[in-house]
């Protein structure tokens, strides 16, 4: 009771409130500043600063682009309160079938369309398993992940080159770099961010995603079909995985069996750092991109400073946990008492 009386007195200012809700902005600025500082010569850096350069900034943008697209798909799934463990193998699967088609001389555009359709199909399958059968998403997508792993290993035993496939007269890796330093994924992610943000904010389907994830029963009562919306979200997830698979395949003209290993876990961590809630109902594309940026900046600057993989993993883990703790203490009381 005492607490309840005190509450109205301690009204947070607008700025504080804003940052409590969007602490990812502060985190991103802090991490970027810290990275730039640490990489400067004299502190921990070497002879010259290789992080804070134009060319590395372009590299960073590319990284955010490639892995951000995957994370965006997962953001949809998170918003409706689901999880998809299979995105990593979806990426490998899509890259593999694309490479198989491209090397056997199928028109590249057609192959891309088929790949995207396949990605959507796997996503839809996930959605169906979760909503129609009612298997918890964690287990359903784990099963799909295991099965996809087997399929990927069969299609692509080690690595598959796209062969002499070309798109409009350019090799695929040349298409990837057609924009010079602004690579294909950077262009794509800008477009997708705009499209997806409009979708989530200004379309009925999109805004109903939040109701689905926030409160399933309320959604049912208010006349929307949460199951159908979940399926759409998983399908969008599959689409994004396929797109990521295509990009990864484009940039080296190759698909490999382990193309999706690890990037799924990184994507999960990234969007959580960004502030997207695993319980559903909260998150947007800006958060997702900023989360991915934070993780990529950390990995990038640690690599530039030539730390071993072990240190990179350790720091990434600590950052994820710290962000979770920070989030815990800055979010509202309703979340605290779940």
């Amino acid at each position, binding site marked *: 009771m005492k607490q309840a009386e005190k509450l109205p007195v301690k009204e947070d200012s*607008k*700025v504080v409130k*804003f940052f409590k809700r*969007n602490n990812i*902005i502060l985190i*991103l*600025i802090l991490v*970027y500043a810290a990275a*730039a500082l640490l990489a400067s010569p004299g502190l921990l850096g070497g*002879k*010259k*600063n*290789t992080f*804070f*350069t*134009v*060319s*590395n*900034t*372009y*590299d960073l943008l*590319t*990284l955010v682009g490639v892995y951000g697209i995957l994370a965006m798909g997962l953001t949809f799934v998170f918003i409706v309160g689901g999880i998809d463990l299979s995105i990593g193998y979806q990426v490998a699967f899509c890259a593999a079938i694309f490479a198989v088609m491209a090397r056997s001389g199928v028109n590249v555009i057609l192959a891309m369309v088929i790949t995207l359709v396949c990605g959507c199909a796997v996503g839809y399958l996930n959605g169906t398993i979760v909503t129609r059968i009612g298997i918890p998403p964690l287990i359903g997508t784990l099963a799909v992940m295991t099965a996809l792993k087997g399929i990927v*290993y069969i299609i*692509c*035993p*080690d*690595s*598959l*080159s796209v062969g002499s496939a070309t798109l409009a007269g350019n090799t695929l*890796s040349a298409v990837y770099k057609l924009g010079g330093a602004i690579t294909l994924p950077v262009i794509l992610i800008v477009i997708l961010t705009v499209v997806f943000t409009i979708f989530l904010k200004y379309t009925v389907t999109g805004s109903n995603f939040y109701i689905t994830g926030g409160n399933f029963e309320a959604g049912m009562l208010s006349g929307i079909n949460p199951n159908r919306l979940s399926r759409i979200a998983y399908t969008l997830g599959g689409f994004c995985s396929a797109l990521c698979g295509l990009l*990864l395949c484009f*940039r*080296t*003209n*190759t698909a*490999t*069996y*382990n*193309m999706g*290993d*690890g*990037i799924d876990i990184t994507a999960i961590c990234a969007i959580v750092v960004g502030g997207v809630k695993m319980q559903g109902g909260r998150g947007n594309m*800006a958060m997702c991109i900023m989360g991915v940026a934070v993780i990529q900046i950390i990995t*990038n600057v640690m*690599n*530039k400073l*030539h730390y*071993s*993989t*072990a240190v990179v993993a350790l720091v990434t883990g600590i950052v994820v946990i710290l962000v979770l703790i920070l989030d815990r203490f800055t979010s509202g009381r309703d979340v605290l008492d779940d």
Partner: protein
Amino acid sequence: MKLKKFFALCMATVMAFSVAACGGSSDSSSDSSSDSSGAESGAAGGGGADVGDVDLDDLTIAYLNVTDSLAPWPQYIKEDFQAICDDNGWTLIGYDGQGDVNTQTDEVASVISDGEADLAVLFAVSSDSGVQYVQDLTDAGIPVITFGSDVSEDGRSNVKCYVGVDQELLVDLSAEYAIENEPEGAKYMVLSGFEGQYDYIARSAETTKVFDEAGFEMLGDINYCGASRSEAADFATTLLNQYGEDMNFIFCHSDEFALGAMQAVEEAGLTGKVHIYSMETFQETLPYLEDGTISSSVTMTSQAVADKLGEVIPKVMSGESVDYDQSIDQVLVTSDNASEYDGTLQY
């Protein structure tokens, strides 16, 4: 809402400023890409970027390893090569590919944008994506030497030379010894490493081919054990339970698995009846090779690769032409010559 837009604007300004502020210090990559036009060196050696004026005593080498931790062999090559670099006063910048093609792609981009390296030595995660890596590095004016595993044929014109092992020869040497010693129509099982890794795939293909030609029968499928000795022991135990003495020998794609197989054979009480043929000789297996518990192995020493790298790098950097194929010596080790190798192996 206003606040949000304000901060978005701030972020954008900060980013733009940061790009502008450090504009002067970079752009080495775009400068150097222009002077790679005359990339043909032809001759007996491979092609790739022209070597500029580099002070051999102040060489910076980007060392793109397949993995620093997942397998001992590349790990030890790096250690041995580091020692050679220290002796010569070369700076080695190590990149850990983590056995992952995406990681290595990012690292290649990083080497190019840093513009610090005079030379790249590459152990590609995938021979196909390796084609793109050597292309990109050459475009940026960085000469490339591959080691450990070669890139696919399309990319070899961008590579100065390849220092490494011949996967087929590795299998052939041990398999021929097995064919000599085993009866006609012998039955065998195979223990291999990481599923999907090119070197084990190559070894598996060669194994099947050689033994098919000899008329031997494979029991079960090829068993992939990762790098796990216990998994090798488990696979061997399972098939030994099933076939017992019907199995003539176990063919292992690394001594790691030979040691696991040896334990399984011992537990099944079949020592001496089921033979073990292997490759990638370890220090740990030498005593067993000597007393014949393991019939054969083939050397593939990390030191040899590192030495060879140390030997060809000065040649490449001074513009001398070198033979493309710089494979290391691979020797069959049996009870006859096992003692010669004692103390020369790293692991």
